[in-house]
């Protein structure tokens, strides 16, 4: 296992560098240069970006620097280099969704989350690589993203580039999307923090749809506090997204805590002990024990199992995805990767009655999970039954649709895309081979602040997030810790 810690400027946490930027001890230009230098040093190894915006990033950083120097500080993302998955529309910048179908697509407006990040003064470094249309397979035109902890292992997906970029210090955060686990699985496999917020918490306007009723948009960062800071910027009602919720955005960072006195953590057998790799189970059990030492009470609960929730989710996703893609599927099917084309064609087989049955089951499972929250504050479970799987046998590298394998990959994450409840993946240890392991915490609707508070207390007690990914060890990186004033 790597023994190196995150000490270089590009590897520090978003809020650590934001504090220095706010105090005028660190220039956004210096910060952006550090992130771009890291991209130059390692991107050819990891393939985490589809588009890098070096020139505009420096220009934005220069503008931010000038604003801060004259006292117009906008908040913790001002002057901070970040990236977004190439699923989100960016005005004047190609938005490919990782597909040949949109290889030349240049939107004329920003997605709401991009607009909000720009308004907060963030510096957009580029657009992250991803699985094609977020549908579980790599398009060969873009190629797979490599895992910064082990180049032979999968990053999972679909926000694969976001996960690797953040883990490898190519920016201080990214925005991903999650329909079956696409934020939380790459977060777990890459050893970072990923939040799938409540359905309706973050606008999806300008995000290319996979499944309207199951798509979520959320932040991916190196720490829980960083994640809270990013969510605070992108969350909130958006009239351009009809499913956007009318719920005030609380002070997520201000609500963080360091003890868990009075917190009730629920564990359910079907998500805790069944079909989980022994190493992963041991790490998650130890994490729950640590939460207990921090003051939490552990409560055994019963939840509707993945074997009910995952088929329901697939019963919703498959026809919704196929319906969205029908025009392209008719006119240019050869432009899809083999596996995504198959997956879209198979969506034609989900009957209207199965779709409605899935909707009825969704209602039932939401109600059952709400009942469980009458006795606990969060559910705890592994994010994935295993740590990162070998890349060459991973679902995303297959040229076939593999419906059963897709269902398997989202076993612990998919149920919360079905219910729309917020779920956070945080690092909770390493395998003997040095691969990160993810702990998933799930809260009741719009209780992201609770998730962050509990996760932050655990994170601070263990400091898993301080470790530098092993594959970065091979690179001679010369960026110093930086102290230049703007």
């Amino acid at each position, binding site marked *: 296992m790597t023994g190196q810690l995150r000490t270089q400027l590009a590897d520090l946490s978003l809020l650590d560098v934001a504090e220095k930027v706010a105090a005028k001890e660190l220039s956004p230009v210096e910060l952006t240069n550090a992130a771009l230098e890291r991209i130059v040093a390692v991107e050819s190894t990891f393939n985490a970006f589809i588009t890098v915006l070096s020139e505009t990033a420096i220009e934005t950083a220069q503008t931010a620097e000038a604003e801060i120097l004259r006292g117009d500080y906008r908040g913790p993302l001002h002057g901070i280099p970040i990236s977004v998955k190439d699923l989100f529309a960016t005005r004047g910048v190609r938005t490919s969704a990782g597909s040949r179908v949109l290889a030349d697509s240049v939107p004329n407006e920003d997605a709401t989350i991009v607009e909000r990040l720009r308004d907060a003064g963030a510096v957009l470094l580029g657009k992250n690589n991803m699985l094609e249309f977020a549908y579980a397979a790599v398009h060969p035109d873009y190629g797979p993203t490599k895992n910064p902890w082990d180049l032979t292992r999968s990053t999972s997906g679909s926000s694969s580039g976001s996960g690797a970029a953040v883990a490898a210090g190519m920016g201080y955060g990214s925005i991903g999307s999650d329909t079956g686990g696409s934020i939380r699985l790459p977060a777990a496999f890459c050893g970072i923090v990923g939040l799938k917020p409540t359905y309706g918490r973050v606008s999806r306007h300008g995000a290319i749809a996979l499944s309207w009723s199951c798509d979520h948009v959320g932040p991916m960062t190196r720490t829980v506090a960083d994640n809270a800071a990013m969510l605070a910027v992108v969350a909130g009602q958006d009239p351009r997204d009809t499913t956007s919720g009318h719920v005030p955005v609380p002070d997520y960072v201000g609500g963080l805590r360091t003890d868990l006195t009075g917190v009730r953590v629920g564990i359910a057998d079907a998500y805790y002990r069944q079909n989980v790799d022994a190493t992963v189970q041991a790490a998650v059990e130890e994490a729950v024990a640590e939460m207990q030492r921090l003051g939490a009470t552990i409560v055994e609960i019963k939840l509707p199992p993945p074997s009910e929730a995952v088929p329901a989710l697939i*019963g919703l996703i498959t026809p919704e995805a196929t319906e969205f893609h029908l025009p392209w599927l008719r006119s240019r099917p050869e432009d899809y990767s083999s596996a995504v084309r198959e997956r879209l064609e198979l969506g034609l087989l989900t009957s209207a009655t199965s779709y409605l049955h899935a909707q009825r089951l969704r*209602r039932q499972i939401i109600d059952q999970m709400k009942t469980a929250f009458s006795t606990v504050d969060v559910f705890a479970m592994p994010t994935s039954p295993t740590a990162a799987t070998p890349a060459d046998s991973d679902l995303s590298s297959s040229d076939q649709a593999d*419906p059963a394998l897709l269902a398997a990959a989202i076993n612990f994450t998919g149920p919360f895309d079905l219910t729309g409840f917020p779920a956070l993946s945080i690092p909770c240890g390493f395998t003997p081979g040095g691969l990160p392991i993810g702990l998933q915490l799930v809260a009741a609707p719009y209780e992201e602040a609770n998730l962050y508070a509990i996760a932050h207390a655990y994170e601070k007690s263990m400091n898993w997030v301080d470790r530098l990914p092993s594959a970065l060890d091979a690179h001679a990186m010369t960026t110093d810790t930086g102290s230049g004033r703007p």
Partner: protein
Amino acid sequence: MFRSIGDAFMGSLGRNPRKGQAEMSQPEPADRAITPELLRTLSALSGIEISAERSEALSLQAEQQLTLMRSLDAIPVGLSEPAGELRLDQELGAS
């Protein structure tokens, strides 16, 4: 340790993981509910053209998809009505 996450999921369906996956990925031709011809016909109804060769290859995956949908249809839902548009903000404090 599981060889793949697929093993974990198939295990959760209460079957031998390896045996379960083999059952889903390689159904005997006589057991298939969907034939290449039927697949082509269903696709054509939606305006999607699939060649004979392609529908032959896809029919194995189609069987897996239908197996999942059959398992979905078999889950009892009591008196639940369809969730429809998910508006969790309108349910706050109502449970």
